[in-house]
């Protein structure tokens, strides 16, 4: 008994000593000391458990008492040492005027309830050092500007930038940046604020087009899907409000079923992110992030958007209403809806028949939140009809060759005036998502979050058919359930933060029939299937002086079962079992306040898709016979990237270089025998044959962003993206790789009303890195297009004007599958009106 007591006594003694040592060096505030005391209480509990464990050891081996006591002393010393630097947090940021990016000098920044305060310097910068962990209310005041108050939860390092508003206007808006982000060491591009406003009315893919390292793979004008560092479709993961988007993403003519009006921020994580998000995040991750629900305000407010496009005579109406309930504090809700209708679009010289679109979307969100618990329900519905250019419907290779030979489509496909009718061929898609996310901040471990989702994707494709029968050609119904349990644990030794998570997915796909195991027809490209998927991961982050390290590990398994009919109509089912271990390591080095270097090594994996396993037939759009292979293995990406970020008063740039090795990269390889390209003879003639094979691929490239403030009002922004991709097994160039791209924008911001005028161009070089005779048509030549933008805000109304392809240039883009048939869009003037209430 006495022996067992000794360590407890010792622990008690040391605990007191520890509390003394842990005396906060900075003056405590009310809220601050409260939060710290609970923290220490937890530590005590942990320490006692620790001693109980050790005392048991001591009972078992009494001879080694001295040794254990010594060990205890040693351990306590280490941990108690680590306990003291709770108050080494830093808080900093920059303060500038709202309309122009001019620094606010001499603003007072103070922390409510403490005696800490500071002034912003000549560059508008401010900083606090040696702050203790906890919640603070930062107040920023300057003469002639409205007071801004922001609450932050300080853990380690935090950047809070303030945008000051003239006192003569009555709007309170705070732009908060520098929030804790995941993937600190990976390059990230963000579209928000004014840049996002300028993209309003466009599809998700189109909106992201301007970001460096991001391209779009198009099928005509209406179908655009994002390409990150040369990778797309199932190699890019889209997180729609935190849930992985599951649609029929394998097809290049399948655009993401997301309404960008839901988001106030679109971010792109460039590079493999398999550890955090699981399979498919080989090229990167796109996050569609809505604003937080208005938990604190009972006032009903919102916005209405009206956008009109001259090209395609397209109109978009979108609105948001949100608020709380006055009697129920912490409750917030939001309603959002979009309606879009467009007629046939025009290239520089002609109208393209049957290219109209229609879209109707809405979402509802409701949430309740206290300091320690919160839950949120989100439902969204997306519904679109997309016309596909009538002149692109081909039956065989001869049709395609004829289309290519004609400089412009046959005149029957280029009507004089656009029509809103959507005829065949077309796509009709619906996608709904239900999400429930809850969090609980536990006393001991940290923050638990549970995210559950159910989504249903219904894709109908109507091809041109004989007899004008009301039959659909393809009908895919995909139901997905996802779940994730995440624990963001409390800092360990006050230095290591991180999270541990479990995730799961269950999915069923019906390509034909109403029952999974009773497929009806064999011409539906992919069989019915069922997938179950699970993963466990841990990601930890360590801060040490100006260094930040991040490392993580993940294990995934994926079981799939396919049910289909073979060519002769016989039933088959196949099972697949895949698993994979992914890892990531990253480091951030903050050399100075302005200069940061990021390094990241990560991997990610992707199991073969059903189309890669089971395709066996003619892909009509591509005029190719494609054959799947059921023996394909998962592909694994090994990604290295280094970024340098420099930001100074006038100059800012970010340079990212990356190298992505993908083992067992799955791709369609032309079938050859004795060096001769092979074709497959069908009733529609002979088609070139392709087989799904695995090679080792290397993607390397550079993204460069540059920003220079020429005068206080004139700003030059440039970006450059370059990708080089090779199949290193056969030493040949990969197909459909984005060409080198330069973007430049010169923007003049007026002092008042957030007004601006900008002019920009996009230069896309000809893709020369293609193998001879690998395509029906050589890549299109270099092109340069111009755009002009302007905007102004008058009280609650924001107006925006954009002219894309200002000189109405006729050009074709290599990444558009319709480059065989028609030009890209001609001049497009759009007017945006936004009313905030």
């Amino acid at each position, binding site marked *: 008994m006495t022996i067992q007591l000794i360590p407890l006594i010792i622990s008690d003694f040391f605990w007191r000593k520890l509390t003394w040592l842990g005396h906060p060096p900075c003056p405590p505030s009310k809220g601050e000391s409260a939060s710290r005391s609970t923290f220490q209480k937890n530590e005590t509990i942990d320490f006692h458990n620790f001693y109980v464990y050790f005392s048991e050891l001591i009972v078992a081996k009494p001879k080694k008492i001295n040794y254990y006591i010594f060990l205890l002393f040693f351990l306590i010393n280490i941990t108690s040492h680590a306990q003291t630097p709770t108050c080494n947090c830093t808080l900093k940021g920059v303060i500038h005027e709202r309309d122009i990016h001019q620094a606010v000098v001499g603003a007072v920044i103070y922390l409510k309830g403490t005696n800490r305060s500071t002034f912003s310097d000549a560059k508008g910068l401010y900083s606090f050092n040696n702050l203790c962990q906890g919640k603070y209310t930062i107040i920023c005041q300057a003469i002639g500007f409205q007071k801004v108050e922001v609450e932050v939860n300080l853990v380690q390092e935090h950047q809070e930038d303030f945008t000051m508003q003239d006192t003569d206007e009555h709007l309170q808006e705070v732009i908060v940046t520098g929030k804790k982000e995941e993937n600190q060491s990976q390059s990230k591009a963000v579209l928000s604020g004014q840049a996002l406003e300028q993209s309003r009315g466009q599809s998700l893919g189109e909106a992201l087009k301007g970001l460096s390292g991001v391209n779009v793979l198009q099928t005509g004008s209406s179908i655009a899907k994002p390409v990150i560092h040369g990778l797309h479709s199932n190699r890019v993961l889209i997180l729609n409000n935190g849930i992985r988007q599951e649609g029929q993403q394998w097809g290049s003519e399948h655009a993401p079923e997301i309404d960008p009006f839901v988001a106030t921020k679109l971010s792109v994580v460039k590079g493999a992110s398999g550890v955090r998000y699981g399979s498919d995040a080989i090229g990167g991750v796109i996050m569609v992030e809505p604003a937080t629900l208005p938990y604190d305000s*009972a006032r*009903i407010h*919102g916005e*209405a958007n009206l956008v009109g496009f001259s090209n395609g005579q397209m109109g978009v109406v979108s*609105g948001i*209403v949100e608020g709380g*309930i006055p009697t129920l504090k912490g409750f917030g*809700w939001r*309603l959002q*809806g*979009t*309606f879009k209708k467009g007629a046939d679009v025009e290239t520089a010289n002609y109208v393209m*028949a*049957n290219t109209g679109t229609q879209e109707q979307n*809405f979402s*509802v969100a409701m949430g309740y939140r206290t300091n320690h618990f919160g839950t949120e329900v989100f*439902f969204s*519905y997306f*519904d679109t009809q997309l016309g596909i250019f*009538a002149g692109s*419907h081909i*039956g*065989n290779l*001869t*049709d395609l060759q*004829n289309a290519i030979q004609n400089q412009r489509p*046959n005149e*029957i*496909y280029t009507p004089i005036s656009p*029509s809103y*009718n959507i*005829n*065949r061929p077309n796509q*009709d898609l619906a996608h*709904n998502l239900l999400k429930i996310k809850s969090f609980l901040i536990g006393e001991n471990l940290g923050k638990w979050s549970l995210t559950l989702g159910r989504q249903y994707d219904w894709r109908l494709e109507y091809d*041109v*058919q*004989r*007899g*004008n*029968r*009301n*039959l659909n050609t393809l*009908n895919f119904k995909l139901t997905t359930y996802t779940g994730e349990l995440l624990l963001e644990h409390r800092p360990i030794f006050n230095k290591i933060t991180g999270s541990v998570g479990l995730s799961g997915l269950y999915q069923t796909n019906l390509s*034909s029939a109403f029952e999974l195991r009773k497929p*009806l*027809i064999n*011409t*539906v490209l992919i069989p019915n299937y069922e997938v179950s998927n699970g993963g466990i991961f841990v990601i930890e982050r360590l801060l040490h002086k100006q260094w930040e390290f991040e490392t993580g590990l993940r294990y995934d398994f994926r079981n799939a079962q396919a049910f289909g009919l073979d*060519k002769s*109509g016989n039933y088959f089912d196949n099972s697949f079992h895949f698993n994979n271990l992914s890892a990531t390591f990253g480091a951030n080095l903050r050399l100075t306040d302005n200069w940061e270097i990021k390094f990241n090594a990560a991997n990610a994996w992707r199991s073969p898709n059903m189309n890669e396993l089971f395709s*066996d*037939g003619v892909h009509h759009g591509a005029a190719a*016979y494609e054959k799947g292979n059921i023996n394909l293995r998962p592909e694994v990406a090994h990604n290295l990237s280094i970024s340098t970020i420099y930001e100074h008063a006038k100059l800012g740039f970010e340079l990212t270089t990356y190298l992505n090795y993908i083992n067992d990269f799955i791709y369609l390889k032309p079938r050859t025998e004795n060096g001769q390209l092979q074709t497959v*003879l*069908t*009733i*529609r*003639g002979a088609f070139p044959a392709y087989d799904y094979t695995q090679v080792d691929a290397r993607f390397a490239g550079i993204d460069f962003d540059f920003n220079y403030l020429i005068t206080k009002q004139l700003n030059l922004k440039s970006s450059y993206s370059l990708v080089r991709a090779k199949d290193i097994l056969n030493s040949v160039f990969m197909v459909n790789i984005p060409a080198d791209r330069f973007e430049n924008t010169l923007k003049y911001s007026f002092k008042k009303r957030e007004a601006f005028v900008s002019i920009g161009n996009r230069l896309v070089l000809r893709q020369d890195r293609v193998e001879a005779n690998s395509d029906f048509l050589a890549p299109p030549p270099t092109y340069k297009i111009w755009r002009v933008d302007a905007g102004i805000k008058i009280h609650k109304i924001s107006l925006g004007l954009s002219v894309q392809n200002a000189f109405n240039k006729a050009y074709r883009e290599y990444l558009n599958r319709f480059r065989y048939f028609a030009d890209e869009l001609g001049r497009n003037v759009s007017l945006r009106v936004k009313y905030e*209430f």
Partner: protein
Amino acid sequence: MFLVLYICNYIALTNIKYKKMNLNLKTFLMASVTVAMMVSCKKDEPAPVEDNETITTVRLKFTQGSTTTTFNFKDLDGDGGNAPVVDKISLKPNTTYTLAVEVLDETKNPVSDITTEIKKEQDEHIIEYVSTPATVLSVTATDKDSRNFPVGLAASAKTTTAGTGKLRVILHHQPPVNNVAVKNGTFTVGSTDFDVAFDVEVR
């Protein structure tokens, strides 16, 4: 959709007019009901999928007098798989045949006769005959559609001297674009429904 916008406006207006907080709950509930109603309006499910575009067999029937010889292009297992079975067209020199084309889907039971469908929609179908060399066989459509353009399901085929060559038979589908008929007797519009090539021997 417009309902939602209407509700949005309503909320905004009531908020400006009365600024009474108890209205908010009411309007919110109203909005929720509207949304719930909209969720329940689903898309009409189209008729179940049926693969109605398959063509497995193109049959050419050459008739001279009372004798009819038949030549097939058959691909019973569809694209890929086993290669199609193609008969060799064997004809007599200096003879004029009546040619009839039959198009079948033999995967269906009973066999689906697509010829009747094409006949029914002759205003948007045309068959093209290409023989190489041109001298081996000359084929001219004898049937006409409602706008007096040839269809090609019925034709006359004429041989001259003995020789060998190829005959390509192509069915072009030229459906109207935005309800405007496009068939104009040429083969440059529309898409190809079948494109089959036979070896021809005249002896």
